[in-house]
């Protein structure tokens, strides 16, 4: 067990897997000598060499397409997108090649695509997005989004070993803000939800950075007992865990950092409406980012992203309902 930041845990996952399995390698823009835009692969070039830590041109389509080819040749590539926003350039390879290859040809596409995502640091419209819903809508992809250092490592190792293409959303805001005890060596974390805090009066369903927002907002909310479900995996979605919590509390708040329309939380709300209707004691509420691009302006950005105050207000309204 070692104390690591969220970022260190991600590095550790890749390093341990690369040490344990020589089929695993990383590729991306400036991941080699420079160690990556966020220094996630710092030191990898020296340890594993240029053949397993590959710098690529600024061409996301090329990165993902090459990774698919390597996977079909029996390797286990990890692609780093410098920012999750840039995956739009690699969309065709991810959606039309990687996601569908097994259905078309029966070939597993054992690739992992790491997406540094999320806002909160004045990165503006091209460096702050939460694009997970794009991938949730494309059958054939798995979509995971850890909120803690321990889960970041375990989920990433699970992703590397998974025979399906996995989109791994690592939240930039958590990189150096979240720390925790992380087991040494390799271990896997299942693609299921985690109960971040148990409670009886209200369920908050969320994932990624919003897990911390939800926990902080409801740590002392007029004595209410608030359960926080950390989804961890969006595809597959752990509907049983969600429904079990809703059956207990009968009230639900869903928090997305992503833009509201068709976000992961919209799917969660739909599942609850369909399968837990008779357990509800109030409307299913959502707090999400409005459907606008993320502004550069720090005050404007802070006004858009779900804040502790907004989560508190929505939770209070539901508790009093």
């Amino acid at each position: 067990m070692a104390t690591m930041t969220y970022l260190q845990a991600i590095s550790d996952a890749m390093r341990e897997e690369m040490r344990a399995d020589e089929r695993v390698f990383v590729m991306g823009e400036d991941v080699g000598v420079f160690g990556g835009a966020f220094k996630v692969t710092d030191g990898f070039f020296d340890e594993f060499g240029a053949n397993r830590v590959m710098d690529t041109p600024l061409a996301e389509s090329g990165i993902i397409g090459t990774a698919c080819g390597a996977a079909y040749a029996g390797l286990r590539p990890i692609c780093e997108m410098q920012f999750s926003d840039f995956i739009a350039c690699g969309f065709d390879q991810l959606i039309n090649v990687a996601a569908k290859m097994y259905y078309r040809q029966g070939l597993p596409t054992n690739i992992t695509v790491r997406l540094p995502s999320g806002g909160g640091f004045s990165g503006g419209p091209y460096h702050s997005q939460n694009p997970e819903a794009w991938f949730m809508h494309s059958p054939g992809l798995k979509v995971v989004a850890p909120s803690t250092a321990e889960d970041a490592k375990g989920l990433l190792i699970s992703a590397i070993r998974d025979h399906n293409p996995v989109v791994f959303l690592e939240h930039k805001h958590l990189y150096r803000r979240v720390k925790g005890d992380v087991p040494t060596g390799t271990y896997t974390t299942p693609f299921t939800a985690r109960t971040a805090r148990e409670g009886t009066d209200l369920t908050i369903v969320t994932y990624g950075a919003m897990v911390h927002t939800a926990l902080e907002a409801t740590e002392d909310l007029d004595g209410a007992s608030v359960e926080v479900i950390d989804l961890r995996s969006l595809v597959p979605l752990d509907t049983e865990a969600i429904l079990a919590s809703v059956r207990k509390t009968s009230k639900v708040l869903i928090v997305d950092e992503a833009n509201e329309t068709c976000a992961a939380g919209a799917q969660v709300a739909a599942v609850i409406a369909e399968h837990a209707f008779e357990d509800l004691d109030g409307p299913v509420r959502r707090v999400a980012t409005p459907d606008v691009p993320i502004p550069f302006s720090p005050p404007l950005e802070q006004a858009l992203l779900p804040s502790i105050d907004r989560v508190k207000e929505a939770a209070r309204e539901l508790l009093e309902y």
Partner: protein
Amino acid sequence: MSSSSTETGIDVVMPQMGVSVSEGTIVEWRKQVGDWVAYEEPLVDISTDKIDTEVPSPAAGRLVEILVEVGTTVDVGTVLARLATDAKPGEPHASESDAVGGTVAPPATSDAAAATGDSPAPATPDPAPKPEVAAGSAGAADTRRYSPVVSRIAAEHGVDLAQVGGTGRGGRVRKQDVLAFLQDGAEEKPEPPMHIESPYRPDPPKPKAATVAPAISTGAYDPPAAEPLSRMRRSIGEHMKRSLDTAATCTSWIEVDMSGVERERRKAGLTALAFVARAAIDALREFPLLNAWLDGDQVTVHHEVNLGIAVSLGEDGLIVPVIHGAQDLSPEGLGKRVRDLARAARAKTLTPDDVQGGTFTITNPGQYGTLMATPVINQPQVAILDLEAVVKRPVVITDAAGDDAIAIRPMCVFGLSWDHRALDGVLAAQFLAAVRDRLEAL
């Protein structure tokens, strides 16, 4: 459903309420001719022997004709009333027009106006009740809305949500409100002690002195007007008098040490009655002449025990539901049947079959501390067993070495009223001794 269709309406007929019931008596019409009746709304109360029941309306419509008057007894299947099912709830009709002295537009005008969609404003408010209001109890309808989980919990537990206070926004009833209501309700309204429960109370709470204030004398006593007896009281009276006129009723008593019964019933979580009933059934198998009917000079000795249990309905009267095939039941099974039947009796959901065919009856009115009674035989049976209060008393006991001692024991007097036409005192005594021996051996 007890109805048959006609072209414009539906006949309401006397329903079949049990395999052995062939006729019923009209007790009260809940609706008058011309009234609007909602589907399944109680329409008429009928009575068969001791069982009263209400007949729900087989359809929504207007009651156009009552064919059987109150007090008349008719066969199952007889048409009792007719409903016009093509009527509309708001439509005025002849009787309503008469009732309000013609201030309402006559039906023809109303129909014509409705047909052209050019209805003039009525001179008076619509006198016809809306079916929703008519179906509900008196008072304002509950207009609050409830969440799915609250509705579900209420349905599962039979909670009337109108009775539940809300602590949510705007007085909304929340899940925790209905859950709290369920919990409080259970505490505040315990099931009333049953007439047939064991009267034995180790430390009985002191009954409060009656708090009825004496009437202040204001001069000459003005007696209240006499009222007719309720139908149930009349029925009980007729049965009891007929029994005393028919049978040669004698009563024998025996004292029973209930120590073993009290110990066993606590262990099993049952009332003493369950064990007494089991012992009585066993004794009846030994002395089957007591498990019999006597009709004139014809005696029927039964080989199955259909055990009647008297259940008090408070001031309303008394009813004797029957446990059919009681010989096959354990004390646990008997206890459960007694409980179920007593609840059904109080809820007035007994069927005529539930009160017929008894071959022997037990009555158990001892909860107020009375020591002895002379119960009246339930005709055409030949005996009835009565158990009164269980009271701690000093009694002389003899130990294994033959030494006598005085001990404190819960004692109970069992009385058996028996028909001297059917049997003699020695058999009654043997039966009582058999019951006692079984109970004291527990």
